[in-house]
């Protein structure tokens, strides 16, 4: 009983940063910009939030600066990719490498291998929802998460509204689907691409802050460990739908929760359980792709 509760709690816990990346990343996906810099944006968010909190002892400021730092990366990405029409895949990779390099550079300058926030206790950041908390099992699963985790789940609904119920969402999709149509009604297509990328950046910054400062009070380099790419995989599988893509993000959270909780029983093989989430994601991608191409009789490949 306990273990199931733990797994479910951890599922929510581990899903949160990926959900944030996903619901931010879908806008760029819908605007037809392949943003593989989610990983780097998340990492820089994680780094800046912890660094700021470490220096100012102000967590809120840390989260804010994390979003701004990610936003700055987003601006670089859009400037190079949209305005200068560079190759977005290469730009994305560069940003991922750059985020890691900057963090490493600063860590070495600080003469440390990781930043630990000793002034605070992460348990204090966990919010307990008054009524829900007391419901058996459900309470222990749904309650007791940090703020950004709640934001991420509420964000799914918010982004759904933004995507399907507002002009902005429609225009982003128009820009992605038929740029000519967008131009014919006078839309500034670059503006919507910028906006789509920047929304993703801010969400990634938030995800990074959640990952490092809020959940662990700790930053180690490359701690994002491919979550940005998992988010991309989830977006692909969910084809940019906020709800569907978020579900794939939760699948990863579940895989991660399983690997964490089951590894206790695995003894020396525990290390291998870390592989599960990645392998599951590859399997999910494969299944989705096979289903999608089930009826495909056309031979060959398209340039993506």
């Amino acid at each position, binding site marked *: 009983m306990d273990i199931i509760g733990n797994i479910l709690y951890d599922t929510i816990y581990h899903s949160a940063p990926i959900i944030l990346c996903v619901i931010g990343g879908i806008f760029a996906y819908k605007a037809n910009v392949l943003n593989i810099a989610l990983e780097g944006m998340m990492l820089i968010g994680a780094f800046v939030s912890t660094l700021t909190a470490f220096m100012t002892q102000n967590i809120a400021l840390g989260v804010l600066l994390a979003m701004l730092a990610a936003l700055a990366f987003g601006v670089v990405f859009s400037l190079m990719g949209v305005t200068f029409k560079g190759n977005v895949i290469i730009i994305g990779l560069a940003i991922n490498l750059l985020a890691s390099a900057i963090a490493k550079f600063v860590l070495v300058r600080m003469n440390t291998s990781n930043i630990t926030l000793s002034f605070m206790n992460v348990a204090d950041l966990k919010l307990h929802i008054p009524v829900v908390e007391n419901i058996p099992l459900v309470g222990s699963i749904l309650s007791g998460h940090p703020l950004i985790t709640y934001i991420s789940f509420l964000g799914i609904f918010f982004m759904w*509204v933004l995507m399907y*119920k*507002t*002009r*902005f969402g*429609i225009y982003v*999709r*128009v820009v992605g*689907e*038929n740029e*000519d*149509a967008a*131009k*014919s*009604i*006078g*839309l500034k297509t670059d503006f919507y691409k910028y906006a789509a990328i920047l929304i993703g950046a801010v969400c990634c910054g938030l995800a990074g802050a959640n990952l490092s400062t809020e959940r662990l009070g700790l930053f180690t380099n490359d701690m994002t460990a491919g979550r940005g790419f998992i988010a991309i995989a989830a977006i692909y599988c969910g084809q940019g739908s906020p709800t569907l893509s978020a579900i794939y993000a939760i699948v990863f959270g579940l895989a991660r929760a399983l690997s964490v909780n089951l590894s206790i029983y695995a003894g020396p093989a525990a290390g291998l359980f870390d592989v599960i989430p990645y392998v599951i994601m590859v399997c999910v991608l494969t299944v989705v792709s096979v289903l999608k191409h*089930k*009826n*495909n*009789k*056309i*031979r*060959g490949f398209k340039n993506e």
Partner: protein
Amino acid sequence: MSIIKTIDLTKKLGDFTANDRINISVEKQEIKCIVGENGAGKSTLMNMLYGLLRPTSGKILLHDKETVINGPMDAIAHGLGMVHQHFKLVPSLTVYENILLGTELKKSSKSPIIDRKKEIDEVTKLIEKYKFELNPTDKIEDISVGGRQRVEILKMLYRNVDILILDEPTAVLTPQEVDELFVNLKELRAQGKTIIVITHKLREVMELSDSVTVIKQGKVVGNVLTKDTSEEELAQMMVGREVVLTVQNTAENKASEEIAYQVENVCTINDYGKEVLQNISFCVHKGEILGVAGVEGNGQSELVKVLTGLMKTTKGKVSIYGKDVTDKWPDELRQNGLGIIPEDRYAQGLCGTMSIADNCIAGYHNAPDVCKFGLLDRKNISSKRDRFIKDFDIRVGDINGNVGQLSGGNAQKIIIAREFESNPKLLIACQPTRGVDIGSIEFIHKQILNFRNKGNAVLLISSELSEVMSLSDRIIVMYKGRIIGELSPKEVSRSEIGLLMAGIQNNKAKGAFL
């Protein structure tokens, strides 16, 4: 009083004068057709009116006032709307969303949320006002091409334009859809709109318009009232000489009994699992050209893809001279004596960003004369390219340049040179003269006939009915993924084929007109 008028409108694109001192004038509430051959400069003119191109010199007068139009939005603000040949619609959005795109209605002026119900009501009213047939909540990707065109027209009407420009509106429509469009356009005229239609189909001009302007090589060569003219007269003005199709299939039908190409019960499906080819069966004899007619989008593309190895069948059998080649890959098909002139030159036939020489061997790059032990013989490839250029009179600017720099006709000639080089026994030619200048059309038609006269078989797929009719020995007509009739071009009229193209198998049925 003319509602729109141009004075000495000129557009130069580099050294090329696309429009040379054009003077036209359109009266209020008339349907004006602007006709001319491909490349005559019609689209350039319309793009200037619509603000997509800036005139090099000359003036545009709207309501007798000189107006500078700075782009499509500005044009619409001046009451001028355009329906392009390629629709500017978003497939995953609904009809009403597309019509209101850019002018969405919100719940209240402060709310960011879009009011779906109000939008649907608004569009329903619009559809009823102009008596169009559309369901506002259908998605664009689910409706017919004709429906999409109606959405485009409504999109303009919703923005209160009183002048509507349509660029080649009938190119992608079935004959019934053309009829419906004409009814719609006439209704719009009755309601006070002015309509300009760009076309090169003279039948449609005669049926639809009030007056006609003929453009040839960037100049206005005629301005007439429709009731005072005839199709023949317009055609003469357009081409500047008596129009007879220069190449005619005059040879007696020498087709032998021997079957060169046999297609039996071929079926295939699209991504959504819908059957887009249903039991296609036909054969081509040696020394015969079999034409495939039909309105575009009735399965011809898929048929060509299946027959050229780009798409798999779900059922059926294809054989070349008795050898089963069902679902073989393109290279295996070529080895079995098939030459391919593909539908979309720059998608399947050529690679625009590769050199002419590289394109001259594509598809035959395994041949022993260009490839030895896996290495390419550059010298042989260059000499092959030079021979093609000489034998097929291909005009190239830079012999080491990319194929993308060539004109449509010259690019097509590279494909033809390449495919004929290996002496195929069977040719599949799809839209062989699309976007090709008149001189090259003649050349290509002659090449195809010569090929047939040597005792080879040809499958010709074209949406230009006159091309199919003048070249083919036999014609099959495709409709909704099926073959719905076979006829001999010498024994039937255009309108009879037209009925079949519209899916009407009963010869007495009325209504379809091409």
